[in-house]
């Protein structure tokens, strides 16, 4: 409950029937609202009631831990003597659920019921008990759908935030893992959890996260994307300034690096901040594979990111303006391909890129069963036939296909999407001004990137403004062996910048050849 609403709160009435009536009215007589009035041996003279919303509670728990004890148990003598404090007695002696809380306002009662808690009321008491009996149907923890790894844990988040937090807790078994749950959304009252590792996280960043979350005023939060758009630093940018993942190990790694994670109930996607440009090129698998392979793959990613933005633009620029740059034989073979093509390079490229984007989107949205049809149409009809019909050149098809494939190398989808949008802008600039246009656009992009901040952390760090400490480079463009990565990656004033005291490999025990 917010402080502004404090005036509107209504106290629970001492009359049980009045309370039940009020709850029924506020729920609009919903048929999944279950209210049960009963008398029990525990307090034979007073009527009791439990109320909950069906489907989001665990019926077994209600039966075993709330109803059964209430109905069958007798209160000890000394408890009976205490008269009016029946609820107190119930709480301490009868209800055998873990978390029980006493509340005194109707709004609280309604909120807890909507959250899946069971309400226990007694006649004559102007308050009620809530018992945690959350339950209902949920998806089981399964393999993550969007971020797959070959080596590494094979489970992802689910929609239930409690399960998700527990997955993190199982990785980081430490009281330093702090979890703060906020309610965001006037109607949905979604649980938004902030997770961080106490002692590692930068307090300033943590405060900033809380401040931005507190400022959110929205009726509903259905996915972490809602939160992301509210708390990101810059709205008018193509570049994501928050990481997202559906992998618990990625979140755990981020927490260990001093980031703050934000989880939203109802979605398997968690957010992590602050971040910088280079984090988007790291896959969790980088850290599970051997460092040399990881380094190689990481360099491949950087190259393909640049290619997926620049390749069509470069092709346009070279074929339209700078033919002299190409070696003669290559130039001749390109010119021969383009001989019968009716369109200028820019139109040809735009045509093919748009086709690919349409195919891609179609592949995402269509029902699974139509998949093969789309791939036949896409590959054969649009690729091969277009070349044979002389509408696009074979070189262009190669360029577009390679661009498309290199885009899929990116481990983070949002960064991949960024490069796709920028690609079109670059193609236009290349069509207008050739190389000059491309350079100008790249200059602009870099200026833009350096001006970005993610929760106050420069987006291009440690490249610009340069590393504050030696050794930050060991996990940016390359990944050195784990024992060499001494520092946490972010160029922040972390409280605790070092992961481990020294960068030495533990010496291996050398077995001599002699037996």
């Amino acid at each position, binding site marked *: 409950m917010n402080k502004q609403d404090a005036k509107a709160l209504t106290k629970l009435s001492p009359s049980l029937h009045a309370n039940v009536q009020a709850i029924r009215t506020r729920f609009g007589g919903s048929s999944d609202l279950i209210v049960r009035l009963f008398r029990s041996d525990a307090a034979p003279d007073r009527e009791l009631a439990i109320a909950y919303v069906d489907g989001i509670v665990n019926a077994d728990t209600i039966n075993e831990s709330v109803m059964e004890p209430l109905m069958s148990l007798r209160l000890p003598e000394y408890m009976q003597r205490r008269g009016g404090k029946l609820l107190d007695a119930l709480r301490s002696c009868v209800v055998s659920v873990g978390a029980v809380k006493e509340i005194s306002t109707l709004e609280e009662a309604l909120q807890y019921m909507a959250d899946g808690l069971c309400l226990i009321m007694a006649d004559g008491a102007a308050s009620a008990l809530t018992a945690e009996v959350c339950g209902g149907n949920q998806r089981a923890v399964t393999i993550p759908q969007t971020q797959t790894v070959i080596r590494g844990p094979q489970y992802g988040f689910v929609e239930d935030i409690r399960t998700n937090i527990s997955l993190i807790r199982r990785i980081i078994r430490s009281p330093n893992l702090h979890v703060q749950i906020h309610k965001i959304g006037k109607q949905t009252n979604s649980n938004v959890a902030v997770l961080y590792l106490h002692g590692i996280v930068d307090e300033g960043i943590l*405060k900033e996260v809380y401040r931005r979350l507190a400022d959110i005023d929205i009726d509903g939060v259905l996915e972490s994307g809602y939160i992301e758009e509210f708390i990101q630093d810059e709205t008018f940018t193509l570049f994501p300034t928050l990481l997202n993942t559906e992998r618990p190990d990625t979140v755990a790694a981020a927490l260990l690096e001093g980031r703050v994670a934000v989880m939203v109930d109802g979605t398997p996607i968690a957010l992590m901040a602050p971040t910088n440009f280079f984090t988007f090129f790291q896959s969790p698998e980088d850290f599970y594979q051997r460092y040399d392979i990881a380094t190689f793959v990481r360099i491949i990613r950087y190259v393909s990111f640049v290619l997926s933005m620049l390749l069509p633009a470069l092709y346009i620029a070279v074929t339209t303006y700078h033919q002299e740059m190409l070696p003669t034989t290559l130039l001749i073979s390109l010119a021969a391909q383009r001989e019968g093509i009716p369109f200028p390079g820019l139109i040809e490229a735009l045509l093919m890129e748009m086709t690919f984007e349409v195919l891609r989107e179609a592949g995402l949205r269509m029902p699974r069963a139509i998949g093969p049809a789309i791939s036949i149409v896409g590959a054969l009809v649009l690729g091969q036939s277009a070349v044979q019909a002389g509408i696009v050149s074979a070189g262009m098809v190669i360029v577009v296909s390679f661009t498309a494939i290199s885009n899929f190398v990116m481990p983070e989808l949002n960064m991949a999407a960024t490069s796709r949008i920028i690609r079109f802008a670059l193609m236009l600039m290349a069509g207008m001004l050739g190389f000059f246009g491309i*350079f100008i656009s790249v200059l*602009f992009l870099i*200026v833009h990137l350096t*001006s970005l901040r993610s929760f106050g952390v420069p987006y*291009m760090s440690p490249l610009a403004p340069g590393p504050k400490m030696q050794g930050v480079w060991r996990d940016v463009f390359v990944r050195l062996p784990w024992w060499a990565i001494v520092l946490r990656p972010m160029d922040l004033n972390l409280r605790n910048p070092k992961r481990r005291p020294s960068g030495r490999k533990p010496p291996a025990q050398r077995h001599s050849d002699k037996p």
Partner: protein
Amino acid sequence: MKEESTRQITVIQTAAILVSTIIGVGVLPLPLFAVRAADSAAPLITLLGMVVAFIGLALVTILGKRFSDKTIILYSEDIIGKWPARLGSVAIIAFFAILTSLTAREFGEVVVTSVLKQTPVEVTVIVMLLLAAISTRNTITTFAYIHNFYFPLLIVPVILIVALSLKNAEVINLQPIWGSELQGILKGTLTIAALFQGSFILSMVIPSMRNPQKAMKASVWGIIIAGGQYVVIVAAAVSVFGAEEIKNLLWPTLELAKATSLPANILERLDAAFLAVWVTAVFTTLLSSYFLTIYAISHLFRLSDHKMFSFFLLPLVFVMAMLPTNIVQMYDIIENVGRIGLFITIGYPGLLLMISIIRKKRGNRNEGKSMDETG
């Protein structure tokens, strides 16, 4: 977290700002300027120009250290009084506005002459100025980050081209090292020193440095790296083409790039790739002089925000850039403006320093902690 503290710029960043500001559009005609003045003594005269430029930069640095909380616009008022100082500041602003427009024009001419032959020069100039104008709408800290980022991009390719061109180099072209005639040396030295004028940006950067007392270190390194690169380029161009041939080339450095090719025959010619680097170099120079202009204006009017001037100045700079009628006239103007500029970038700080020493004026000494600077 959102408000960045105003004193964030490190020594390395300052050096990067200096290097990438100094290396700019002047790289292309530099060997021509040097050879015209002193034939085969071109590398030597470049070195001399570098020394002269360093004297100017050193004056600015010493002044900046004496008044570590203020830009030259503000501390000049402390030294020589309100109105004379404002006159000086207006001269600085006007000079750098002109320098910005000339840089943009020179850049436009190169692009139109060598790469985009059918594009009107207005287009390339306005695109470049727009890019600079948009980029100046950042804080001075981000400004430093931008230079920091581009710094390696400016150093590595030039070294690469120089190294690759060594294949065609003839040492005999560099002799006699002392040159044959000494008449043009003074003029040539000043012309080349004028290419270093962008380093005046230091007078705006010092108040935002984390440790202004280390500014001298930054300026020494900045001059050594940028000047060293200039000397290397001149030496490479002269050794490849020879002094007499360079006199017939408008942009010898560009020809140097054209004359080199990558070993594996991937790209036939390197000039477009070189132009890419050079666009970056020009951009950083343009950004600095543009930034200096609007930052100085905002300080002159005691405004906390310089952003509003970035587009306000754009039409003015663009019109000035279009004033020269052709390349020859443009280079005449550039040489003259450059030499006049030396009075502003070396003479004026020298005067200020002298008077401040005589009048024993100093800024407040609690360096590093003051937060009252606008930025």
